[in-house]
């Protein structure tokens, strides 16, 4: 592999790598309204996400994760997006939205990495709302 081909790799484009190396919104919320954890056992990716809620909207999101570039960058982008959005809207986000947000197609082997942050966030929202998360990311 040449350095050039690696850098031009669409999966590892600048944006993803930047978020991976400098993850923002990283940490735990002291007074989280709801928290959820999820993992992708195949990779060893783990994420814990917490939310604060005000007027049925997400007031703040923080997460702690140990994972690959795709899941970590995804967690950041998702946390940025979710802030200020209505719980009901965020819990309806799907796989298509995530792929668009990341701007990549990770392929079947890595799709789980891309979807892990959304799943954890949904778990947190569902638990806050007292709903049962059925676990299908396509149709919440």
């Amino acid at each position, binding site marked *: 592999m040449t350095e050039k081909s690696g850098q031009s*790799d669409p999966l590892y484009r600048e944006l993803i790598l930047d978020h991976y190396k400098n993850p923002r919104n990283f940490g735990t919320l002291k007074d989280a309204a709801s928290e959820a954890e999820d993992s992708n056992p*195949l990779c060893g*990716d783990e994420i814990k996400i917490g939310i604060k809620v005000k007027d049925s909207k997400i007031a703040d999101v923080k997460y702690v994760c140990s994972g690959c*570039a795709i899941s970590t960058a995804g967690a950041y982008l998702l946390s940025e997006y979710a802030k200020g959005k209505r719980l009901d809207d965020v819990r309806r986000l799907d796989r298509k939205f995530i792929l668009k947000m990341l701007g990549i197609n990770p392929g079947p*082997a*890595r799709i789980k990495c891309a979807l892990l942050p959304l799943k954890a966030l949904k778990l947190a929202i569902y638990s806050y709302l007292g709903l049962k998360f059925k676990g299908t990311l396509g149709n919440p």
Partner: protein
Amino acid sequence: MDSKEIEKLRKDFPILKRLVNGKPLVYLDNAATTQKPRQVIDAVSAYYASSNSNVHRGVHALSEEATEAYESARKAVADFIGAESAEEIIFVRNATEAINLFYYAYALHKFGRGDRLVKTILEHHSNFVPWQQLAWSRGVEEKIVNVKQDFTLDYDEFEKYAAGGRTKLITVSHISNSLGTVNDVRRIREIAEKNDSLFLLDACQSVPHLPVDVGRIGCDFMAFSGHKMLAPMGIGVAWCRGELLERFEPFMFGGDMILKVGLKESEWNTLPYKFEAGTPNVEGAVGLHAAINYLKKIGLEKIHPHGLQLANQCVSELESPGIKTYSPPNGLRSGIVSFTVPGVHPHDIATLLDREGIAVRSGHLCTQPLMKALGVPAVTRASFYIYNTKEEVGKLADALKSAKKVFV
């Protein structure tokens, strides 16, 4: 094996000609499964083209041929691992099923509260989880031998855990699928003998690589998979010392495992059929037979040194400030090298290598307890086989250096 020999045998493997992401395939995922030579593919194809039939019960010509093919494969396996008779060879799907056979057919009936079993932290989940279940369901005490800093088993701990007169089972892999460590089976046999314990050997990573003789090793039960030694998936072997196998209870009931079926009770078939209920994987056995012939032609004694040579080259080429390898000292190493690049997730490494046509495995490698002990969530693993070359190891090292740069 010299480079000429390897070049020649590479021609037997059609898949090695293909490109992956526009680059020649560099297949370094052999501990997961090996590729198949033309000779194996042809044997399976020829079986379907000329002899396909169900075995054992038919009297027509095809059934006789299929039975002959299936049973001659059993004899070839027995001969290959030094079993005393073909009756000790039970065909199963894979090593996992073989170990489960021991669990359901023997361990569940014979072990209970007050008994102890000793396993190790480096076992594949298939030789780890069944014993947790045994501890849960039967109250058997489990002891887990750790690995030392040098990625070898702590044999002092082994001795200590096995002592005390209660150990009924010692179960261990011959070669670690994650670390490549060749475990000291002679020493483990001695520990088992001293404590009057059964000795189960998971030989998944050793039978494909070196001459394994069950008599010389002195184990009581051995499991391995065909697909890690050039044969098709779905065929594996459980070998058990005949006298012990006589004491197993059947755990799958149905056709072929019975001699006589009455309205209220049935009589079991003789060994090994008692443990092979239902239509078996004849094509798999035929493929395994062809694979054994292929490996014997190369010479089993030449395979491990070849993998070791590539592993040594791999460790020395990868060793740099930015890469950590998890490999035992040279003498105990085999053709498996796991590594991590601090700051880069193993899956990202594997994806970047895949872009260069290099197939490696990343993740916990079905050894989550070991990963925890090593303090990593996952690793990337390169594993070598007969068709891999020094040049391919060089490609891996180069690609890894470039992959690292992507993340700097």
